[in-house]
């Protein structure tokens, strides 16, 4: 019984079977171990490459032709609009799925040796996925894409000393223009996908080297052949994802506003949705802290964690039952406190006015940052005293606060900021 599938593997040693081990632990292929997120990310990359290459046949990366070439794709090419829709919606899915995969990997603690290198490759992949979407965002050259990229790249200029130079390099000049479009096009359809392919090969190889996904010790060591057990599950997950994307692309068109007009900004002008959390943060805290210090703390901490604390219970969700409880508590806390803080700041506190006459870097930057850091410090102390939480559990809780906080800030930025970036209800935007 066990032998028969193995024989089949030999006969069909094609690529799909090649990247899988011959047999896998039965517990490692339960859907709720990985939720299929890594596989979905791969599928989305393949969809993006295929549709992207098709779009490239008609797309022209120059300011006076780009918009027309999108119109041509939509109106004159058979299924052109459909292909563009697929590229648009999968691009959004890709960011979300890669983010969820990142969260799942962290919570299942699959970040220590031998998965530590993969954790870092993964963080690089997450950043590349976001930049892939961002560079694609400019290409249609409509009002939405032009101003989103103008606003988002301009955030760079607030980095002390090197920001202005970086901004000029990214844009290829002072303004978003033909050099910017060519830069973005080259990154979007060349440098970024090639880098991702290399990193993904390394990523998959590392998963194999770690003997598959993380499962907690004490789990049954019963193994089953990968084919058909795992491959079939992947196939079904993939087909469902494809069905959802096709359905969405048939029903909802990718947006296309008026041709980009550098002289008139739309109101409000928003960064792409995945940067809206940062743009929202920018309304409350000095730019240097919003997108240098805080992201550096977050990603730096994530990389530091498996190096400083070298061991963990890999495969055990949230590290422990207590970790799970604290993560839930942290999520609820962030869910309530983030909107409360935004509302208080907006209408009552105006923390930026508390230190009049001080340099902005201190009154709007360091000071609120210390307030924020101080409250997190108190929170950590509370976890430690009240729950006797271990380092792992505290970090799981802090991670949850950051993730939840960012999601809430994004939701506020995307749906609750109307004209002039004042708070409104979603139906008034």
């Amino acid at each position, binding site marked *: 019984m066990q032998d028969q599938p193995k024989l089949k593997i030999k006969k069909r040693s094609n690529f799909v079977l090649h990247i899988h081990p011959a047999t896998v632990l039965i517990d490692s292929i339960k859907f709720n171990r990985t939720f299929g997120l890594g596989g979905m990310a791969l599928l989305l990359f393949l969809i993006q490459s295929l549709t992207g290459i098709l779009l490239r046949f008609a797309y022209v990366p120059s300011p006076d032709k780009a918009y027309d070439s999108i119109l041509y794709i939509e109106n004159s090419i058979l299924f052109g609009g459909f292909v563009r829709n697929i590229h648009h919606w999968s691009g959004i899915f890709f960011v979300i799925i890669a983010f969820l995969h990142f969260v799942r990997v962290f919570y299942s603690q699959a970040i220590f040796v031998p998965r530590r290198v993969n954790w870092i490759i993964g963080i690089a992949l997450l950043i590349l996925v976001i930049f892939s979407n961002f560079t694609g965002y400019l290409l249609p050259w409509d009002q939405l894409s032009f101003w989103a990229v*103008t606003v988002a790249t301009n955030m760079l200029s607030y980095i002390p000393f090197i920001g202005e130079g970086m901004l000029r390099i990214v844009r*290829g000049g002072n303004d978003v223009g033909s050099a910017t479009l060519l830069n973005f096009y080259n990154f979007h359809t060349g440098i970024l996908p090639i880098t991702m392919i290399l990193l993904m090969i390394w990523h998959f190889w590392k998963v194999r080297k770690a003997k598959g996904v993380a499962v907690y010790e004490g789990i049954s060591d019963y193994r089953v052949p990968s084919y058909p057990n795992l491959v079939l599950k992947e196939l079904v997950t993939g087909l469902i994802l494809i069905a959802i994307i096709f359905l969405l692309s048939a029903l909802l068109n990718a947006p296309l506003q008026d041709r980009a007009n*550098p*002289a008139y900004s739309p109101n409000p*002008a928003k960064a792409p949705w995945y940067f809206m959390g940062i743009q929202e943060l920018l309304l409350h805290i000095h730019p240097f802290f919003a997108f240098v210090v805080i992201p550096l703390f977050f990603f730096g901490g994530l990389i530091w964690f498996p190096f400083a604390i070298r061991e963990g219970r890999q495969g055990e969700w949230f590290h422990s039952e207590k970790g799970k409880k604290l993560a839930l508590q942290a999520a609820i806390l962030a869910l309530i406190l983030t909107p409360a803080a935004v509302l208080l700041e907006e209408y009552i506190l105006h923390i930026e006015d508390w230190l009049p006459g001080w340099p902005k870097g201190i009154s709007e930057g360091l000071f609120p940052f210390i307030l924020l850091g101080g409250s997190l410090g108190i929170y950590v102390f509370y976890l430690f005293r009240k729950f006797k939480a271990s380092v792992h559990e505290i970090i799981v809780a802090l991670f949850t606060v950051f993730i939840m906080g960012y999601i809430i800030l994004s939701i506020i930025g995307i749906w609750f900021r109307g004209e002039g*970036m004042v708070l409104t209800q979603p139906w008034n935007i």
Partner: protein
Amino acid sequence: MKEKNIHTNSKLETRNSQPATSRRSFLKRIWGILGIVAGIEMLAVFSGFFAPGKRNLSGTTQTLVVAGNVADFKLNSVFPFRSGKFYLARFSDGGFMAISLKCTHLGCSVLWNEDKKEFMCPCHASSFDKNGVVINPPAPRPLDTFPVIIEEGKVKVDIGKPVRRLAFDRSQITYA
């Protein structure tokens, strides 16, 4: 595998006389230096392609825009030159100032509001007075200006060089 190699090497080296070791390390260093040189060359080639401002794709090098005759501009008013990326302001004493329309917050294009006599940014509601000085944040500093040159009764604006400023002062105004 690697460790084993190092191990045998060090054994060899201790047995061998001094010169062999230094020749080996000398060659190693040469390789290293060549590698670094190649890397720098790659970087130079890359930055040649990537450098900002070098690739002038539109083909125009002219940055001096002729705005019009001095006499054409009424006192105490603001004239939009949207294609040239600036507003030309003429003050009551006859002085000119070319104010960039790029908001200093995140780079949207400001609009002149004639009723309020303010530049308003549609993106995040910054506003600026007729000198380009911030009335309403989040914009952190006044709007940039462009150098104005007045020759033979014509007003010319050099849109190649935006001038950053932290406050308004009268030296920013150009007189005929």
